[in-house]
């Protein structure tokens, strides 16, 4: 058994800079680089369909990281992500399609607008906690969608707006591959930003608020300000994800941002691991792809038992629920933990005792 009191052998950090680095161990740094290389090379060997799916996963991951900042790290449960994705998508749609701004301006602006609206709906966190706050965010969901579907002159009402893929000069990101790279770069920035955030002052304050808000306040953390800040930062990334999604699917409409979407994002961070940046990514991939794999499964089964098609469709839902529950039962800390366990196992293998 690994003794938790002993540091990884062979690695000594002689100064604090090394000790505070993101990836402290050389081998890990190499592995990260290798993974990155793999992600950049991936479209070369893959089909459009798979690239498209991965793009959706990646966009979801950006949103999930955003939600995790708020819910996983700061402890403020939100069931309003769906609507915030919508705010991001719509802002970008209005800015590009109606005002003719460039995508490259519109997406960050969408993030900011979502962040501001997120912070606005974060105000109840001044007084509300836990599930009560969660319902206040559910209210945000309902109210935002109402406004979107009623503000016809700007949002196109219930029929939504049509967006275009971005361009640089004469190059348009119309292919799956090009949009994939756009997503990948954004995801990397989001990930690194978040990792950094949580090894510095503000991120630490967020976690402190989650763990024990009263103590945090006595340590000099302005609770309300930091909670709003968490809503702000979180919503920023959710907004960016919403905008990216909008430009990818080229449409925004109220029906795309239902409460179901909010629940799905919650599922992502729970399955992935609350308070884990990489967990958010795993969770996003998992929840996005699970229906796809289930469909695959159903399809291959349907070949054998064509008569049972209808039953399989129901079983798909059963399987979806069951997988989530099994996850929670066997690994409540989520995919991130499973990944850690695998790593731990191999690190000490063959001396795993």
């Amino acid at each position, binding site marked *: 058994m690994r003794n938790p009191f002993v540091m990884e052998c062979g690695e000594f950090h002689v100064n604090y800079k090394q000790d505070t680095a993101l990836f402290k161990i050389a081998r890990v740094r190499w592995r990260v680089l290798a993974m990155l290389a793999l992600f950049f090379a991936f*479209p*070369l*060997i*893959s*089909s*459009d*369909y*798979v*690239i*498209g*799916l991965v793009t*959706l996963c990646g966009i979801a991951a950006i949103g999930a990281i955003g939600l995790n900042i708020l819910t996983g790290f700061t402890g403020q449960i939100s069931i309003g992500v769906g609507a915030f994705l919508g705010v991001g998508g719509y802002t970008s749609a209005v800015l590009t399609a109606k005002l003719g701004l460039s995508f490259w301006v519109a997406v960050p602006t969408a993030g900011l607008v979502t962040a501001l609206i997120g912070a606005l709906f974060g105000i109840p966190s001044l007084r509300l906690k836990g599930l009560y706050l969660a319902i206040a965010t559910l209210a945000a969901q309902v109210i935002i969608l109402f406004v979107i*579907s009623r503000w016809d002159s700007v949002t196109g*009402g*219930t*029929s*939504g707006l*049509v967006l275009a893929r971005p361009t640089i000069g004469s190059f348009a990101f*119309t*292919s*799956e*591959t090009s949009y994939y790279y756009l997503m990948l770069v954004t995801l990397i920035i989001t990930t690194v930003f978040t990792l950094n955030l949580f090894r510095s002052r503000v991120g630490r304050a967020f976690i402190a608020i989650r763990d024990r808000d009263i103590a945090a306040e006595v340590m000099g953390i302005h609770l309300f300000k930091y909670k709003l800040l968490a809503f702000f930062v979180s919503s920023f990334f959710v907004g960016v994800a919403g905008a990216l999604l909008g430009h990818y*699917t*080229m*449409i925004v*409409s*109220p*029906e*795309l941002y239902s409460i*179901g*979407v909010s629940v799905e994002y919650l599922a992502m961070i729970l399955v992935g691991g609350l308070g884990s940046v990489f967990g958010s990514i795993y969770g996003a991939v998992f929840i*996005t792809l699970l*229906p*796809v794999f289930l*469909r695959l499964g*159903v*399809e291959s089964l349907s070949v054998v038992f064509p008569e049972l098609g*209808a039953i399989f*469709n*129901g079983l*798909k*839902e059963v399987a979806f629920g069951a997988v989530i529950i099994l996850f929670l039962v066997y690994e409540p800390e989520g995919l991130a933990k499973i990944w850690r366990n695998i790593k731990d196992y191999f690190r000490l293998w063959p001396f795993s005792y």
Partner: protein
Amino acid sequence: GSEKTATEVKKGEPVKIGGLFDITGGTGDVGTPYAEGEKAYVEYINSKGGVNGHKIELIGDDYAYKIPEAQKLYQKLKSSDKVSAILGWGTGDTEALRQQVATDKLPFFSASYSEHLKDLKQSPYNFLTAASYSDQARTVLKWIKDNHKGGTAKVALIYNDTAFGKSPIEDAKAYAKEIGVDIVDEQIVDLKALDTTSQLLNMNKKAPDYAIINQTWGATSTILKDAKKLNLKTQFIGLNWATGEGLVKIAGDASENFIGVVTHAFPYEKDLKGMKDVEEYLKSKGQKLEDKNQKFIQGWVTAKIMAEGIKNADKMTGDGIRAGIEKINNLDLGGLAANVTFTKDNHAGTNKIRLAKVKNGKFEVFTDYISYK
């Protein structure tokens, strides 16, 4: 990864058509028979040898009325299965995929009959296989205008706050103005409303003679029941998704005298010429027409129009099939639906509907295929 989507289908190989079905989602009650109808027709036509020597392969799946799932499923149909056309379903997903099907050049039929799908610039690959919601509403208004006795007819509109619900509203109002019918009130009723008393009472203050409902069965039934409870005198008229056997079942007595827009025939209209094929197919499966409902016929007809487009196609590609559909001229659907005609600048197959009234728990069609034009 930059392969093109569906290339031309070679002679003798099956033509693949993608299907987006709602089986388990919010509209599963009507989505299921609709999907069955589509599959049934495809099976039927294949049993007759297919079209032009091609069998049709309908590769479809449930997307549970979730747009993101529809998008993923569409990606798969396009990139993995390499389908040449799509049979879609709801308003939301049809909207969500409108741009993409245009980019990917895949003709798209959905069960959503939004007027703006007519707009060829916005949606060059979408087709309307039945009268658009707006046309339905216009025709209803026209019928009111023609049949109302005593003064100007007062009409209320009841719909829900979704793209589907609102789709015909502006057009209906404009048309009413044009022909001199008063739209006196509008009420929004949620798709899942438990109670509509407040809306109906407010509406009743304006004392409309007619109320046009664009809803699904559930909400329509709630409206009718509450109207009966409140003893309203208004004549309710529903567009096509409000109409159907399901409404009578849920609303019971309250649905008596309700008038519905009928875009597709009821299976019990056995005398219709087109019903023979359906009957023949069902017999081969050991089923009867009585087991089926109108939505089954609707799916059947939709698939049939698609097959006709494939038949007319010179090239078995998305583009080719589009051109094939655009060649359909007054396709006789044997009374199962209004005959359809498509051209290069018209993707709306028809603007005709029939009207039916509920008598003794059954929709009885009382008009021929009529139109406001």
